[in-house]
């Protein structure tokens, strides 16, 4: 590939340099002006930006495998390790294929405010070296497409934590195909697609700030997870029978990979390698820090011991909480958002789940849904036009440009987006589950549940000695 492209690059260089050489006698200002003109419109590919977006795409995939796979795999019982890992892993294949055929087009094609035209980029036609000026003017659209694909993979994978240890694999795959098609791709379009209903920078109606997917990824998966847990019902023996994690060490390795991967998730969402990426990177880190402390200290005070899994869960909660807000808030604001997220998610996982007795097995709703909902709302108050100048002067409402920086009116916009997402996720997931249930049945038989998904559904065991 490099060899065939190299001559083209030389030609480009010559085209750029020729006018400069021809005017060697001109003033410095003149030459600079010509250089800028020669650099062309804002859609020229910047190799630094492209490097960061590609690296970020790889980091986000790493969050699914092995990050989430180890995190979830460690939390289940040893008879369900492979089945649980498979639920995340298979989406790398299934969702990628859908993304190629129509997913990217439904999410980022032009269409109505609710979903993109599935034929515009059908089979990724036209998605190549040329940047898409609306989404990422300095990287090939192909890079942007790859980066976004990794989000489409991890979002449904997060949901799998709620149905762990009891769902039929056949039903799971069918459910996920329908879920990404009817919920994820449209929601992605509404928030990030050109003309999307909630897109504050590209012609939306209600300006919701969601930098890296608090609403699109975590609230949608968290709310759907809760519906899945309720519709599928509890695991046999829950909550009277102990179901402790079979290997906390695996989960801790997973959390470490998630934190590192999240830098790609959030800082990569700047889709350039500039100051905005640094800002999102910093917010991400300090929120996870705050939440680890928030969860750890709360548990220490209430239960007498700071558990290792608790601190790790706090880290994930902090990362989910800051996802919408990174890129819009200062470091101290991010720390406070994380600290609050750690305490609130601890309460959601222990008190809320205990009170309503649903079996959200790996706490997808309590950690991702509740955390990111909180982050979306706090962002409405903490969003800063100093950190992200674009929100100060981009959105036009009623003929005049309004600021989306922290205020009660922006809090209202955020709440509207949140309510819509929860509504779509809850209703959509419920209907999809009913359809899938009618076609394949949702749960494995009680015998298979007792022997474990690994053997019953996949014919393998994770540990053979």
């Amino acid at each position, binding site marked *: 590939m490099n060899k065939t492209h190299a001559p083209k690059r030389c030609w480009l260089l010559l085209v750029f340099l020729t006018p400069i050489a021809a005017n060697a006698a001109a003033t410095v200002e003149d030459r600079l002006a010509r250089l800028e003109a020669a650099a062309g419109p804002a859609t020229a590919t910047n190799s630094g930006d492209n490097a960061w977006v590609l690296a970020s795409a790889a980091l986000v995939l790493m969050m699914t495998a092995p990050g989430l796979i180890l995190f979830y795999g460690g939390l289940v019982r040893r008879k369900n390790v492979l089945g649980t890992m498979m639920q995340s892993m298979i989406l790398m294949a299934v969702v990628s294929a859908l993304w190629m055929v129509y997913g990217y087009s439904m999410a980022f094609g032009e269409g109505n405010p609710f979903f993109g035209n599935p034929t515009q980029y059908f089979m990724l036609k036209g998605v190549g070296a040329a940047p898409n000026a609306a989404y990422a003017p300095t990287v090939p659209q192909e890079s942007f497409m790859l980066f976004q694909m990794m989000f489409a993979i991890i979002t449904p994978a997060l949901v799998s934590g709620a149905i762990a240890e009891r769902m039929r694999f056949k039903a799971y795959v069918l459910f996920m195909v329908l879920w990404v098609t009817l919920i994820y791709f449209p929601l992605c379009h509404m928030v990030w697609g050109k003309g999307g209903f909630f897109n504050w920078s590209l012609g939306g109606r209600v300006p919701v700030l969601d930098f890296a997917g608090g609403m699109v990824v975590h609230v949608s998966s968290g709310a759907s997870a809760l519906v899945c847990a309720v519709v599928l019902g509890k695991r046999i023996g829950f909550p009277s029978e*102990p179901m*402790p994690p079979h290997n906390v060490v695996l989960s801790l390795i997973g959390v470490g990979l998630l934190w590192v991967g999240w830098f790609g998730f959030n800082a990569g969402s700047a889709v350039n390698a500039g100051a905005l990426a640094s800002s999102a990177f910093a917010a991400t880190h300090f929120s996870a820090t705050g939440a680890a402390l928030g969860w750890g200290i709360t548990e220490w005070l209430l*239960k007498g011991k700071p*558990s290792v*899994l*608790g601190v790790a*869960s706090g880290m994930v909660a902090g990362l989910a909480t800051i996802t919408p807000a990174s890129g819009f808030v200062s470091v101290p604001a991010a720390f406070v958002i994380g600290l609050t997220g750690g305490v609130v998610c*601890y309460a959601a*996982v*222990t008190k809320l789940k205990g009170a309503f007795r649903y079996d959200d097995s790996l706490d997808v709703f309590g950690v991702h849904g509740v955390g990111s909902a909180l982050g979306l709302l706090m962002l409405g108050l903490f969003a800063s036009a100093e950190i992200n100048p674009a929100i100060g002067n981009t959105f036009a409402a009623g003929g005049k440009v309004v600021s989306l920086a922290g205020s009660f009116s922006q809090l209202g916009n955020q709440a509207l987006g949140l309510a819509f997402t929860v509504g779509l996720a809850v209703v959509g997931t419920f209907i999809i589950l009913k359809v899938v249930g009618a076609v394949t049945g949702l749960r494995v038989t009680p015998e298979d549940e007792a022997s474990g998904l690994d053997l019953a559904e996949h014919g393998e065991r994770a540990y053979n000695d």
Partner: protein
Amino acid sequence: MKKIEAIIQPFKLEDVKEALNAIGLRGMTISEVKGFGRQKGHKEIYRGAEYTVDFVPKQKIEIIVPDSSVPAATEAIQRAAHTGKIGDGKIFVLNVESAIRIRTEEEGDNAL
């Protein structure tokens, strides 16, 4: 011929083995077991969910000895495994009908 089964604290296994070796008893079968008697289990908490773990890990030692060795063997185990705290375990003595060494076909005390 008697079988002595002792349930002991896992960290006392080495001491018990050495005490038995010291009185000339070589050979034993051990297994990691779980159970509870008067010793209470402990509490584990994963993400706020509390589990009471009743079954605590113990070590089981099985030895077969001639009748004449029983008092010395039980005393050795009792002394070596003793800490004075709840959870030290128990010793059981059972009758054994016969014993055969597979390699040589020796029987009875000669097989031990």
